[in-house]
């Protein structure tokens, strides 16, 4: 049942791709056919995923496709169900959001066919990845996902920067795909077959298991945007249309996480704690650097993309912890960490897509991507403003929203490190927890900047000043996601309980005590050790608010009076006097300066006596090191090799004859 529904979702996505082939110059097709179909697909996927997640036992089927000896097999178990649910929710939101958003493409010739067609394929690809039960189908779906998202990244291919981003993205996706393929190759060679069932049963030698893990880690990590393989992500995600960015950041990264979990926990099975440490360290570094990079961005979508790197880092940190616990034989604790990680994945999907949709909304209204030209939008786009605020609070992991719940669980898992026998691990895990704490604090800073600069203060440009309200669909989509953020945050027990099924499947343990005190209390280990009651927190805040209002709000007080902002007695304040995003980020830029490659130019022209500065110009370029440390060297290497090789083709026929002459001689000499 659930499986059929899931397949129906795939078909709906494909259908939306097909119908939008007719969308050339007819945007109505996109608005009224393909996006509703997407919404339908998302709904079906969400329902199917939810059923599978709650249902427990896996369902399998075979598609009439694939190789003669390796037909496509699909399987829907709880893990697949979870991620199908994620895909479904966001897809549904996009289906609602889309029609209003694409209406800006009504004028001018935009390749609408491309947009609709590949969006459908993209979503179908992601759903198939989650459903696949053999490596061959997995790879096909995976690359379908990459390829179609690539075509969406180059949607605005007039700007050279976007083309470059697209190329980089495609290249990295391909390399990652090949790495994953190699990993599956290892598994299949020993498992004697490319279907996952065969891989599950086989026991690899520790060495080969580690090889397979390393390949999967690199491959999926590349897609998930782990540092230092992340450089493509902030280039590619922002340049796509915003609802696509939402899908890429919100969902595609999760699909990568899915692949990693599937391969590591399910297919390889015997987890070694060494892998856990690797994932732990890489994850925490990604989290920290991700948020630090995000802090310095002034392009709203770039900022969000970088913060995705951070959240993926947090997820992998949790997964790493789970691996450490499992590798050392503490399945119960492993379950806590795993649930925390998966819960964070779920939450990140919600709030990151919420934020990207909000950003898309803002960008569509202001036609600006640069935060420095926004401002004061809260009063102009009130709905978006409120929803974006909720998203920001969730991603900054503030109670009582969902981001906090999952981060809290992660911390609780980290605190169990004391139970480990190995002293090194007992030190490493608290240390990574400290990194996580720093990350959390920085993410608060980062989103204070984002929200404050975009929505508060005075508008910094004419377009921002004249931004007007948006289509209902777009508000609705954001509203829905915001509501989910709140619900998942206030009733974490529901999700945690469901995720218990997943941890049951993967670690053989579930967080039994987590929900034993009823829906009100979340107690990962035991009620005396740690407890968190999000509902009561919410009630408490509201209660306190109400009390204040009742007690302290003076009766019959004269209502507020509006007055000018205090300008210290100098003339009136204008928008250019307020803090910019760059200046807001300056202290942290100064504190963590070694993290970036900063080149800052200040040109000061002062008058003759050099006291009064007549003109002042400031340029700032903040870029991350991985370019100069990793990517450019490799590119240069290839080019140099190519130049060397090119000497083979130097044009003189006699040399060519000499080649075959000597080839002959050498071979003859070899064989005799």
């Amino acid at each position: 049942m659930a499986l059929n529904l899931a397949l129906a979702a795939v078909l709906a996505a494909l259908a939306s791709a097909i119908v939008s082939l007719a969308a050339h110059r007819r945007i109505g097709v996109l608005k009224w056919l393909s996006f509703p179909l997407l919404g339908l697909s998302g709904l079906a996927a969400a329902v199917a995923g939810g059923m599978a997640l709650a249902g427990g036992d896996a369902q399998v089927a075979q598609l009439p496709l694939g190789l003669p000896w390796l037909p496509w097999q699909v399987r829907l178990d709880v893990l697949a169900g979870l991620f199908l649910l994620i895909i479904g929710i966001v897809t549904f939101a996009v289906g609602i959001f889309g029609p209003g958003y694409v209406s800006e493409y009504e004028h001018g010739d935009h390749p609408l066919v491309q947009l609709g067609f590949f969006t459908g394929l993209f979503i179908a690809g992601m759903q198939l990845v989650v459903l696949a039960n053999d490596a061959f189908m997995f790879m096909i779906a995976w690359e379908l996902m990459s390829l179609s998202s690539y075509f969406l990244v180059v949607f605005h291919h007039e700007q050279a920067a976007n083309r470059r981003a697209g190329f980089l993205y495609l290249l990295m996706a391909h390399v990652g795909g090949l790495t994953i393929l190699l990993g599956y190759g290892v598994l299949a060679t020993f498992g004697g077959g490319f279907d996952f069932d065969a891989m599950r049963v086989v026991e690899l030698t520790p060495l080969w298991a580690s090889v397979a893990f390393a390949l999967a880690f690199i491959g999926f990590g590349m897609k998930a945007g782990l540092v230092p393989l992340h450089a493509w992500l902030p280039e590619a995600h922002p340049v796509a249309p915003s609802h696509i960015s939402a899908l890429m950041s919100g969902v595609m990264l999760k699909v990568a996480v899915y692949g990693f979990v599937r391969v590591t926990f399910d297919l390889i099975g015997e987890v070694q704690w060494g892998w856990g440490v690797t994932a732990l360290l890489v994850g925490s570094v990604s989290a920290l650097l991700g948020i630090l990079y995000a802090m310095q961005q002034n392009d709203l979508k770039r900022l969000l993309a970088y913060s995705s790197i951070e959240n993926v880092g947090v997820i992998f940190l949790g997964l790493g912890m789970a691996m450490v616990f499992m590798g050392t034989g503490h399945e119960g604790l492993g379950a806590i960490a795993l649930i925390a990680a998966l819960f964070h994945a779920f939450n990140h999907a919600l709030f990151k897509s919420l934020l990207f949709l909000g950003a898309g909304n803002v960008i569509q209204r202001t036609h600006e991507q640069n935060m420095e030209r926004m401002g004061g939008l809260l009063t102009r786009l009130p709905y978006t403003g409120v929803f974006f605020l909720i998203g920001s609070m969730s991603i900054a992991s503030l109670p009582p929203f969902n981001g906090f719940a999952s981060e809290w669980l992660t911390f609780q898992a980290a605190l169990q490190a004391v139970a480990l026998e190995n002293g090194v691990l007992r030190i490493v895990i608290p240390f990574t927890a400290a990194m996580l704490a720093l990350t959390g604090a920085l993410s608060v800073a980062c989103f204070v900047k984002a929200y404050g600069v975009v929505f508060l203060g005075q508008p910094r440009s004419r377009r921002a000043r004249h931004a007007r309200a948006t289509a209902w669909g777009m508000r609705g989509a954001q509203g829905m996601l915001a509501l989910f953020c709140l619900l998942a945050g206030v009733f974490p027990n529901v999700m945690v309980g469901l995720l218990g099924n997943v941890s049951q499947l993967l670690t053989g343990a579930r967080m039994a005590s987590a929900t034993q005190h009823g829906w009100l209390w979340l107690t990962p280990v035991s009620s005396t050790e740690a407890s968190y009651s999000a509902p009561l927190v919410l009630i408490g805040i509201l209660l306190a608010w109400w009390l204040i209002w009742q007690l302290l709000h003076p009766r019959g007080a004269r209502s507020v009076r509006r007055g000018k902002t205090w300008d210290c007695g100098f003339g009136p304040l204008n928008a250019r006097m307020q803090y910019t995003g760059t200046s807001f980020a300056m202290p942290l830029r100064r504190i963590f300066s070694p993290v970036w490659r900063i080149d800052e130019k200040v040109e000061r022209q002062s008058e003759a006596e050099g006291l009064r500065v007549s003109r002042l110009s400031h340029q700032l370029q903040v870029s991350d090191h991985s370019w100069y440390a990793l990517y450019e060297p490799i590119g240069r290497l290839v080019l140099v090799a190519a130049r060397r090789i090119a000497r083979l083709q130097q044009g003189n026929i006699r040399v060519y004859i000499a080649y075959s002459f000597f080839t002959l001689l050498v071979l003859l000499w070899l064989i005799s």
Partner: protein
Amino acid sequence: MTWAGWLLALLQAALFVAAAPLLTIWVKRNKCWLQNRRSPSLLQPYRDLAKLFRKQVVLSENASPLFRSAPYIVFAVTVLAAATIPLISTQLPTTAIADMIVLVGFLAVVRFFLALAGMDVGTAFGGMGASREVSLSALAEPALLMVIFTLAMSAQSTNLASTVQYLHDAGLVLRPSLLFALFGLLLVAVAESGRIPVDNPATHLELTMVHEAMILEYSGRHLALMEWAAQLKLMIFGVLIVNIFFPWGVATELSAAALLIGLVAVLVKLALIGVVLAFAETALAKMRVFMVPQFLNLAFLLALLGALSHVILEVDI
């Protein structure tokens, strides 16, 4: 937990909120004495608050709804945070609502809205204050969390009540980890509650101010709530320090006598720490803003040392 427990929790929270201004003025008085100035009466902060509540609110014309609701959120969340801290007794049902990590979360919420409110009007001051606040606390918060980790690892719990209970029952044990944690927490407390040498609540000097810069645009009851929340914050840190590291006298069961002892004990301890703070603020000078990170790094380092020394020195497996 019985209804009595909840009632006690409510009373305790009320006491906490009510007593917060008292601690501030107590520190101020001590400072005055130390600097042989005449000190205001102990009721002065209450008078100020009352006055502010009565005064009319003047809002900048480009202040958004967020600006108006921020004070309420800030105050409410701070009160909730206070309510989850065992002041007199460890028999506190509210501690189960939020453990120490959630407490840090509450402080983060407060900071989040303070900073947003600071940026809302769109003056240079507000933005500057917000920027400094988030930057500095971005360093303070991890230190605080590390302190909490150290405690949690010793006490096998992040629940404040049971932690205090544990340390109380353990009696006088000299733990290197707790020593480090204490000093770390002290530094963090100074930074978070905006005291010298990190920030000076008494001045509005644009080069140095952090907290004041954010609430510069506030007036009337909004300002009152903000001020009160700040005083609560100071109190929260004070209580945390005294009740965790010097848990003696705290009531561990719900008997009138025990509660009375607990009340007296916590008042004495707070008075003492007030004196210490006053001494410190008199002795030290406000440091430059960009010296503060080193200060907080020190705090973080201490906390980390605490955690590590716990793992290395105190656990035996």
